[in-house]
C-alpha cells in the first residue's frame, strides 16, 4: 500500500485537495441555516437559495483565507500579516514531523508513532529547558539537541524491536503512542516535571534561555523554529538524495531483498531509519515546547503526529512536497478559527476537508474517475 501511495503524482495530490475543498463547500452550504430556510421555498424563488449558498460558501472560504494568509480587513499592517505567521507557526511542527514520517515511509517503514516521538522530544527538551541553567547560546542548542535525541531514541527502539524480533512497526508505534502519552501524564503528576505547588498536570515554564527566538516580536506566535523547519527540509532532501545512508534507506524501502543481497545490513538500517524519523518528530516536539507552548502539558503534541502522516502522504514523501503540504495544513488550522468566529462555520468542516484529502490520496482511482483521467487499463474497461 505504501508503494501505491508513493506512485501517485503531484497532479493527483493537487486534485485531491481541490475535490476535498469542493466537498467541504457542499457541507458548508448544507449546514448553513440561511440555505436551509431558503431551500424551503426553492421552487418559488430559487434565486434566494442560490445566493444563500454563495454567501455561505464564499463567506466561509473568504474567512479561511483571511485567517490563514492575509487579512485585508485588518486596520494595521501587523494584523494584516498576522494570519500568514499563524499559518507558519502551525506548519512548523507539522512539517518537521511530516518530514520524519516521510523518511520512514520512503524506507518502507510505516511509522505511525509521530505522536509518541513528538512527546518524547518535548519531554526531553522540556526537562532541559526547565532544569538547566545556562546562557542562551548554550542552553537553547542543548535543549533542542535533547529533544531531537529523545525522539531519535524512542524511534530507534521501534527499529530495534523490528530488527531483533520482527515486530510489526505499525502496531509497535501505535502502542508506543499510548506509552509516551501516559508516561507524560504520569510525569506531569510527579516532581520530575510537575510545577511545584500546582495541582494541575503542568510543568514549570520553560526558561527564556532555552526558547526559540520570537523574531517578529512577542505578539506573534511564529518563532525561529520556522528556520529550523526549512533547514530540516533541506537536510532531509540531502540525506535522501545525496548520501549513502539515504540511498540505503531508499533501497530498503523499494526492495528489501535486493538490499539484503547487496550487503546492506537490514536490521541496522531499520534502527537508523527509525532514529532519523524519530529525531525529526522530536524536533517538532522542541518547536512546540521551546517555541509555541511555553510549558509542558499533556496537549503538547496536539494532533500533529497524525496530521504529519497526512502531510507526508500528501507531499508524496518528497521533502519539498511535505513542506507545501505542511503549510497547507497549517493554513487550514489557522483559518479554521477565523472561519468559526466570523461565519459560524463549525471548525469540524476543516477536519472533514483534511480527512477527505486523506481519503482521496489513499484512493487515486476516485480522483481519476472524477476528472476522467484514464490509464490504459481503465480505457479498456470503459
Amino acid at each position, binding site marked *: 500500500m505504501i508503494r501505491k501511495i508513493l506512485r501517485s503524482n503531484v497532479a493527483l495530490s493537487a486534485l485531491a485537495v481541490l475535490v476535498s475543498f469542493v466537498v467541504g463547500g457542499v457541507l458548508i452550504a448544507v449546514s448553513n441555516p440561511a440555505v436551509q430556510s431558503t431551500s424551503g421555498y426553492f421552487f418559488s424563488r430559487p434565486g434566494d437559495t442560490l445566493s444563500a449558498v454563495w454567501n455561505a460558501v464564499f463567506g466561509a472560504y473568504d474567512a479561511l483565507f483571511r485567517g490563514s494568509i492575509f487579512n485585508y480587513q485588518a486596520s494595521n499592517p501587523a494584523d494584516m500579516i498576522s494570519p500568514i505567521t499563524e499559518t507558519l507557526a502551525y506548519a512548523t511542527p507539522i512539517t518537521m514531523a511530516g518530514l520524519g514520517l516521510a523518511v520512514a515511509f520512503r524506507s518502507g517503514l510505516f511509522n505511525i508513532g509521530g505522536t509518541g516521538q513528538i512527546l518524547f522530544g518535548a519531554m526531553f527538551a522540556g526537562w532541559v529547558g526547565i532544569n538547566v541553567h545556562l546562557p542562551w547560546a548554550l542552553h537553547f542548542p542543548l535543549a533542542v539537541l535533547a529533544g531531537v535525541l529523545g525522539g531519535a531514541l524512542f524511534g530507534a527502539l521501534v527499529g530495534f524491536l523490528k530488527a531483533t524480533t520482527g515486530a510489526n512497526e505499525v502496531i509497535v508505534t501505535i502502542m508506543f503512542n499510548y506509552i509516551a502519552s501516559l508516561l507524560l501524564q504520569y510525569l506531569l503528576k510527579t516532581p520530575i516535571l510537575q510545577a511545584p505547588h500546582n495541582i494541575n498536570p503542568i510543568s514549570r515554564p520553560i526558561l527564556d534561555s532555552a526558547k526559540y527566538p520570537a523574531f517578529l516580536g512577542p505578539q506573534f506566535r511564529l518563532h525561529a523554529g520556522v528556520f529550523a523547519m526549512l533547514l530540516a527540509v533541506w537536510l532531509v532532501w540531502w540525506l535522501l538524495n545525496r548520501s549513502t545512508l539515504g540511498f540505503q534507506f*531508499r533501497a530498503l524501502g523499494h*526492495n528489501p*531483498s*535486493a*538490499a539484503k*543481497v547487496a*550487503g*546492506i545490513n537490514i536490521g541496522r538500517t531499520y534502527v537508523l531509519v527509525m532514529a532519523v524519523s524519530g529525531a525529526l518528530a522530536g524536533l517538532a516536539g522542541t518547536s512546540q515546547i521551546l517555541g509555541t507552548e511555553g510549558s509542558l502539558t499533556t496537549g503538547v503534541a496536539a494532533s500533529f503526529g497524525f496530521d504529519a502522516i497526512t502531510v507526508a502522504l500528501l507531499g508524496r514523501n518528497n521533502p519539498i512536497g511535505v513542506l507545501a503540504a505542511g503549510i497547507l495544513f497549517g493554513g487550514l488550522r489557522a483559518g479554521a478559527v477565523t472561519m468559526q468566529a466570523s461565519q459560524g462555520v463549525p471548525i469540524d468542516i476543516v477536519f472533514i476537508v483534511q480527512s477527505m484529502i486523506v481519503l482521496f490520496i489513499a484512493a487515486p482511482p476516485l480522483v481519476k474517475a472524477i476528472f476522467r483521467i484514464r490509464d490504459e487499463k481503465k480505457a*479498456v474497461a470503459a
Partner: protein
Amino acid sequence: MRHRKSVRFGTEAMKLELRGITKRFGSLVANDGVNLLVEPGQIHCLLGENGAGKSTLMNVLYGLYQADGGEILIDDKAVKFSGPGDAMAAGIGMVHQHFMLIPVFTVAENVVLGHEPVKAGGILDLAAARAKVKEVSDRFGFDVDPDAVVGDLPVGVQQRVEIIKALIGDAQVLVFDEPTAVLTPQETDELMAIMKQLRDSGRGIVFITHKLREVREAADKITVMRLGKIVGSASPTDTAEELASMMVGRAVDLDVAKTPAKPGEAVLSVKDLSVWDAAGAKVLDDVSFEIHAGEILVIAGVQGNGQTELTEAILGTQTKTRGTIVLDGQNLIGSSVKERLDAGLGFVPEDRTEDGLVADFTIAENLMLNRSDRAPFAKRGVLQLGFLKDFAQRKLKEFDVRAQGIESTAAQLSGGNQQKVVLARELSRKLSLLVASQPTRGLDVGSIEFVHEQIVATRDAGTPVLIVATELDEATQLGDRIAVMYRGKIVGIVPPNTDRAVLGKMMAGIPA
C-alpha cells in the same frame, strides 16, 4: 455469447484471424500491421525476442488492450473485445506466464472462480465444480486432483490447472504465453504432449516462446516477430541457427565460443556443507566441492534440489549452516554478506527483479547498489553523483545495455538488459569468485549470447566461476565440469562431454 458457449462445448472448431493489428504506446509502435491466422488443429508458434511485441499482440487478442488499427476475426466475422470476459466468451483461453491462481484455494475452487456453479439459494455447488475438473482432467489425462490445494502443487501441475480453467470456459483457441519459462525439462516435455493432445482435439494453439528447441519440437507453423512486425514464417524443420537468425535479424552462433579451461589452484573449497531452511528441513546435505581459478563449475539439476540454498549459503543469506566455505584461504562462515562481497564475491541472483535490482531505481543507482558506501561511489558518506554518472554511461556502452539513458529505471528495461545491468555491476569490481544462478533464465537469444561471453571472459581472466543451470544445454556448453545435484546432495561431478542420458539419470538421483 453465453448461449453459444454451451452449445459448442468441446466440438466446434474455430478459426481465429488477426488482421493488420497496430498498437502504439506513445511514440512506440509495439505492433505494426500484424497479421496472424490460427487454424483449428494447429500449434502456431509465435517466435520472437523479448520486446518483439508478442505479448502486446496477445493482450490485444485477449481484450486487455484496444488496438489502434486492424481487426480480429473469428470464423471470418469481425469481433470486438472490450475485456478478457468478451475474449473468453468468444472461446479464447489464455495460460499466463505468471499463473492467475489463488494458492490457498483448491483446484476445483480455482477453476470455477468467476463463474461458480450454484445450488438453490446461491450456495456454491462444489460437487459440480469437482465433477467438471475431473471430467476435463480425465479426458486429457491431466491427473489433477480437484481437492488439492493449489499452493501445494508443483509448478507444472499448477499450469495444468490454468489449462483446465481455460478448457472449462470452452476455449477453442488457447494462448500459451512463455509457458515453459518456469518448468523443468520433464515438465516441459509433459506440457508439449498436452499441447499436442489439445491440438488433436481440434483446438487452435498459440504458443509464444523464444526457445528454439521447443519450437522445433512442437510447432506446426511458425511465425517470427521482430520489433513489432511479422518478419516471416518458418518451418519446424529449419535449423535452430536459421530460426535464431530470423528472430534476431542477423547471423547467430548458438554454441558458446570457449577455449579449453586452464584451471589453476583451488580457490573456493566447500566442505561438508549442510543448510537447514526456516522450517528446520535439511535442504543441503553434506555438499563438498572445489572450484579452481579459471574454471567454470556448473551445478546442474532440476530446480528446487538445493541449488538456490547453496548459492545463498555462499552469499551468506542462508544462516542455518554447518560445514565450511573457504574462499582464498578464508572461511566465510559467520561473516556478513557485506564482508563476503568485500572479499571479492560477485553474485548474480536467480531472480534478478526480486534480488538483483531495485526496480524503481535508475540504472545508475542500481550499478552502485552494493558499493554505495565506499570510494569511488561515496566519500565519507556523500554520494559522488558526478562519478556515478560517468561510470554508468561507460558501463551502459561496455555492456550494451539498451535504454533511453542512465536515468531510466530498471523496471523500464527488458529482462536481457536488466541482466546486463546486474552483470555490469558484479563484473566491474575485482572478483575472487563469481556465482551466477540461472544467469540466462528468461533471456532472449541475443542476451544469452552476451551473458555467456561475459562469463567465459571472466573465467579466462582467471576467476573461478560457479553457475547454477537447470537446462542441460547450458550446463554442457558452459561448464568445464558439471556437478549434478539431487535432493540437496551432489550426485556426482562429471566432464561436460558426458552423455545427455547419463546426465538426465543423474538429475533423477542415479549416480553415473
